[in-house]
């Protein structure tokens, strides 16, 4: 069973429907026992980092997610959920993340030319920078759907894929069993469903780096 962490952030309709489409048994929950009994966890999220990080802490879900990740359970953060995996974010200030993947979250505006629009909204291609079981059903150059104004930086060792938007932006990253997608697999058509299917097939792994 997949536990989709419910901490009051974002619209989970599409994620639930996508998982149902590929035959996954998914539960939206903030119940520690349910999460503990799950095989894998998805951390969704849209909106502001500071607000989401606070809700994650206050709901107790930050500790639960860290504990489950330390057990080697496959964990996938999507969009803001991915950014929350990192050490910290510089989105309007400086805010602490879960520290499960090393790196920081910075404004896209720092690295892209002035004439590029922000947010980065739309379909953009993936370029793989490492082999990952997450990509076993997709190909380099496949398009996925992005909506974001911030990106994960200083994380070369963990980067699995980048996308080109005036600069190479981190599109997917991993540290052991902890995965993150900046794009929305649940909104990325067939390619997105294939990424979710690959995530469902990941096995529990060893310790974090």
């Amino acid at each position, binding site marked *: 069973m997949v536990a989709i962490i419910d901490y009051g952030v974002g*619209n989970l*309709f*599409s994620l639930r*429907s*996508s998982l*149902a*489409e590929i035959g996954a048994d998914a539960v939206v929950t903030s119940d520690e026992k349910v999460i503990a009994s799950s095989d894998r966890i998805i951390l969704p999220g*849209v*909106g*502001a980092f500071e607000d989401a990080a606070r809700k994650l802490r206050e709901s107790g879900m930050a500790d639960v997610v860290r504990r489950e990740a330390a057990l080697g359970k496959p964990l996938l953060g999507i969009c803001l959920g991915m950014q929350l995996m990192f050490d910290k974010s510089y989105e309007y200030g400086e805010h602490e993340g879960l520290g499960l993947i090393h790196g920081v979250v910075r404004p896209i505006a720092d690295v892209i030319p002035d004439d590029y*629009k*922000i*947010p*980065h*909204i*739309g*379909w*953009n*291609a993936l370029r793989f920078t490492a082999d990952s079981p997450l990509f076993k059903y997709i190909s380099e150059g496949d*398009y996925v*759907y992005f*909506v974001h104004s911030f990106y994960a930086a200083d994380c070369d060792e963990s980067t699995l894929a980048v996308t*080109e*938007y005036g600069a190479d932006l981190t599109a997917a990253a991993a540290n052991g069993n902890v995965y993150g997608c900046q794009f929305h697999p*649940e*909104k*990325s*058509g*067939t390619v*997105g*469903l294939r990424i979710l299917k690959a995530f469902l097939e990941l096995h529990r792994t060893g310790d974090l780096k």
Partner: protein
Amino acid sequence: MITKRIIPCLDVKDGRVVKGVNFENLGDVASPVDMAKLYTNSGADELVFYDITASAEGRKLFTEILTETASNVFIPLTVGGGINTIADFDRVLKCGADKVSVNSGAIRNPSLITEAAKLYGDQCVVLSCDIKRVDGEFRVFARGGRDDTGMEAISWIRRCVDMGAGEVVVNSIDTDGVKKGFDIEMLDAVCKAVSVPVIASGGAGSIDDFIELFRKVPTIDAGLAASIFHFGEVSIADLKARMAEEGIPVRIV
């Protein structure tokens, strides 16, 4: 590289897809759910569902159609029509919409944009604007293009973006339904005025019209159309193949 998006728009009335010429003479087309699946498989980058129903019964049917579509289609879904309050945002987001477009509702109450952007994020709030040339200026029209608001369009759009609209759909009433091409002059003016994504609507009659749009307004992000896709005059697969040939960045499925 980010691709130019092709977006079919489904005007829905009492649970069926319709399309008007200059917003009049509505004619029935097909099931919105079937059309959404068809478009997704042929390469649509996004879908817009526009609720043109006025009755409560029609609205309930729309919500059911939306839920069914969102459960079966896994690309971004924008919903518009009759969005006047935060409760309206909430209703369609719960049924699976990813973005909500506001038009007359924002004209009546501009703070709707600010409130919605704060609650759901800028990326969720799409400003849809019906524009017509009046006395040598671009004028904002309300109520499906029926009422001249007297407001100048470019300053209105700028104001809405400042309040938190994350994307803008520009529908030219002057070219809508005429099928002689997008309103290049109007779209260029809007693209120069704002830094958020702009979606062109109104006037597409052929593949060439889309090519002209992306060539002449290189900062436009997407082209939206309804009847030419519904009636099979332009297939999305053919359109995208041609865009690729012309060197326009496009997602081929």
